[in-house]
């Protein structure tokens, strides 16, 4: 069973290995920047690398993109019918699939992170504030849930648009930026960052990472509350959209 998982998940595991590129990029880019300056927006070279390490780790946890592709593909091929007749809630099915992938990869991700720390000689320092660490964990879980909902949403848009590839790619680019995976949001103009705090992406990866770095500790509670609200909102959006678009479905192909 483990073996078939290995073979099946080969691509996903290579994904873990290839996460090295994110660190490599950060390393090369920021070593050039930090040649000119000691501190950038409160980051030193090593805390910057730590930032990328943690953000990279969190983004690797999110395996829900597969939902977007799977759902839209099944709808296009007319194979979505098989979910509609199952007694299990469709959303719950995909959510648990994603959770399973995340759990499976957790070990590999932790292991990989350890290797990158060693390879790039990162002086890994983390906050020791229990409250912040806990808040970060809660945010990460809520964030993963939100991403599942987001991908599910894009997936069921296939009822109307059929081909959601472009949407998925756009989402990928935009979300990467908004979650702070490309650069710490602290570098952006204050007005931008303030605006972003109303949206969920700020809390999925950026805030947890900053909390673990010992910063932004005053945003713990508000962060959790806002993300919970967004999760609820999207839960409703998904339910409504699904009901509305389902009627368009042809069931062509089967």
């Amino acid at each position, binding site marked *: 069973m483990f073996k078939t998982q290995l073979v099946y998940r080969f691509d996903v595991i290579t994904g873990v290995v290839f996460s090295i590129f994110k660190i490599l990029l950060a390393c090369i*880019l920021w070593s*050039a920047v930090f040649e000119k300056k000691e501190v950038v927006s409160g980051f030193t070279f090593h805390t910057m690398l730590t930032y990328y390490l943690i953000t990279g780790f969190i983004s690797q946890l999110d395996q829900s993109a597969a939902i977007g592709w799977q759902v839209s593909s099944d709808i296009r091929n007319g194979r979505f019918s098989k979910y509609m007749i199952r007694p299990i809630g469709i959303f719950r099915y995909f959510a648990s699939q994603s959770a399973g992938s995340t759990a499976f990869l957790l070990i590999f991700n932790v292991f990989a992170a350890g290797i990158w720390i060693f390879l790039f000689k990162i002086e890994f320092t983390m906050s020791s504030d229990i409250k912040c660490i806990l808040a970060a964990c809660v945010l990460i879980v809520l964030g993963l849930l939100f991403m599942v909902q987001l991908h599910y949403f894009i997936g069921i848009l296939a009822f109307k648009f059929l081909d959601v590839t472009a949407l998925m790619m756009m989402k990928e*680019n*935009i979300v990467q930026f908004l979650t702070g995976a490309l650069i710490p949001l602290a570098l*952006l103009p204050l007005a931008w960052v303030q605006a972003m705090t109303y949206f969920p992406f700020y809390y999925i990866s950026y805030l947890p990472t900053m909390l673990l770095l010992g910063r932004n500790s005053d945003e713990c509670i508000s962060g959790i509350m806002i993300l919970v609200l967004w999760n609820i909102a999207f839960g409703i959006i998904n339910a409504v959209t699904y009901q509305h678009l389902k009627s368009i479905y042809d069931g062509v192909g089967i």
Partner: protein
Amino acid sequence: MSIKRQFKIIYMLMKMKLSKNMAFRFSFFGAFFADSTLFLIQLFMFSAIYSQVGSIGTWNKSQMILFIGTFSIINALAMTFFLFGLITIPEKIKSGELDLYITKPIPSLLYLSFESIDLGSFPLVFASIALIFYAVSGMTVSITFLSVVGYIFLVILMTVLWYDLMVIIRTIPFFLIQASFIENLEGEVLTLCTKIPGTLFKGPFKILFLLLLPYGLMATVPAQFFSGTLSTFGFVYAVALVAVFHCFTMFFWKFGLKHYKSASS
């Protein structure tokens, strides 16, 4: 086979692809939307970084924008002409569908490369040119006829380089069954090399990304040329490298064909 005939066939393939989807729907411009967000985001990213520091390596803000714009235009050309054709090759090798391309009296690579011309990506070229103009407006170099011609020449040259690299990667499935991770690797290296100019690489990474997998050259060389920071050696090196890579690609593809196992029906 004469060049004229080759172009005629490419033209016909394009007409056919176009007639398939004439409606200017969202999906027709899908690639345009997807990739323009990519470059837009990159602009934001570097604007943020440059708000904190004056230069990254030897690249100031305008030069960096030129770098981004250069890659954007190479990407646009690739997507318009051959990208969507080439990415189907590994699947065709695996399924045996390649049989029907090999047995036609035209170069199989030609047919495969230009089978999926995507005119919906072409607007990206204009968007990229706009970006380039924006970059140049912030630069202090003098714009001469020679610098423009040279830049265009290098952009086309680097597009050919990208073509070669894509083909080489997709020739590997002739020999290796489980080769999809190589395409993932290609994606990662591309992401890396489109976010930072090649001059930032040091040590072994220099050899890796400027010689063996010269993605690091692609947007760097034309941008450097236009900024006036490209040495003669750099120019000659780039041209020679592309020539070598191109010859190797053609040879490697033919070699791969000989090893085609052709899945049984």
